[in-house]
């Protein structure tokens, strides 16, 4: 477990913490955004973050919850690929919070 | 059940026409009403939206088989068909 610190590069974000310039993203920036969300990133988190970044590179899309769960299921297996698991890693709204940390645009606002 | 085809550009008629089923109806609106000036098969149920026809000076130029529809007729056509397909281009 990483010790929360207030150090690390700062990148400009909007009021909800999404990066203004996606090119500013780096693993250090991710740690910093996660910290603001009250999340200490573990390897489990990083597997999801990498998968999200790959998804975005392939599809120019921040996935909403269902396709995200589906992709995690196929790529990382049935234990990781449940909404409950994602909810544990990224409490609240996993698709939104994980996208924020992964440096993707906010998922299309459905609700 | 039948489809109501809305056509709002004359050039979109070429896309719509091959997909008109025997029970289907076409309603030309906006710039789609110009499509009613060309020679069209007589067996098509063809309506044109009256205010759009009037605005464009076409009322006297329509074939007798073409029917003028008011907005209320438009609503009745929508209700009387299972679905509405809107063509544009």
């Amino acid at each position, binding site marked *: 477990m990483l010790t929360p610190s207030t150090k690390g590069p700062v990148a400009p974000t909007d009021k909800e913490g999404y990066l203004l310039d996606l090119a500013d993203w780096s693993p250090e920036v991710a740690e910093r955004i996660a910290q603001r969300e009250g999340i200490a990133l573990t390897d489990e988190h990083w597997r999801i973050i990498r998968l999200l970044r790959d998804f975005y590179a392939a599809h*120019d899309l921040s996935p*909403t919850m269902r396709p995200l769960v589906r992709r995690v299921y196929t790529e990382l297996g049935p234990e990781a690929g449940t909404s409950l698991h994602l909810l544990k890693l990224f409490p609240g709204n996993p698709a939104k919070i994980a996208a924020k940390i992964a440096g993707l645009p906010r998922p299309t606002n459905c609700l | 059940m039948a489809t109501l085809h809305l056509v709002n550009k004359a050039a979109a008629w070429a896309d719509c026409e091959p997909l008109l089923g025997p029970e289907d109806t076409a309603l030309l609106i906006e710039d789609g009403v110009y499509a009613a000036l060309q020679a069209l098969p007589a067996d098509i149920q063809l309506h044109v939206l009256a205010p759009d026809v009037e605005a464009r000076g076409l009322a006297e130029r329509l074939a007798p088989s073409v029917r003028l529809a008011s907005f209320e007729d438009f609503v009745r056509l929508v209700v009387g068909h299972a679905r509405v397909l809107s063509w544009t*281009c």
Partner: protein
Amino acid sequence: MSKKILFLLNRAPYGSSYALEALESVLVAAAFEQRVSLLFKGTGLHQLLTGQDGAAIGQRTVGKVLSALPGYGVERCFACRPSAERLGLAERDFCLPVKWLDYEGQRRLIDDQDIVTG
């Protein structure tokens, strides 16, 4: 209630926001568990071309978004054969598998829908 919704996609992928914004509504309809089908017609078939890179003009890549559709549960993608013949396109040009329909097939597809939109 789950409905059968057909999206008629006949806009070119770039040059206006119609194609991408239409795809957004396709993805949301799928996310809300509607039975979604797509019918590509006319220059809408150009959305399916491989090798697109929207970044060259500062836009998202329509072909990349389309390739996400199976992951959203959208697997019913149809293409108008007469349009493709007119435009000189074949399935090997496409980034997504499609089922080809002639006019009769398209009429049957439309007749089977609750809603058709763009």
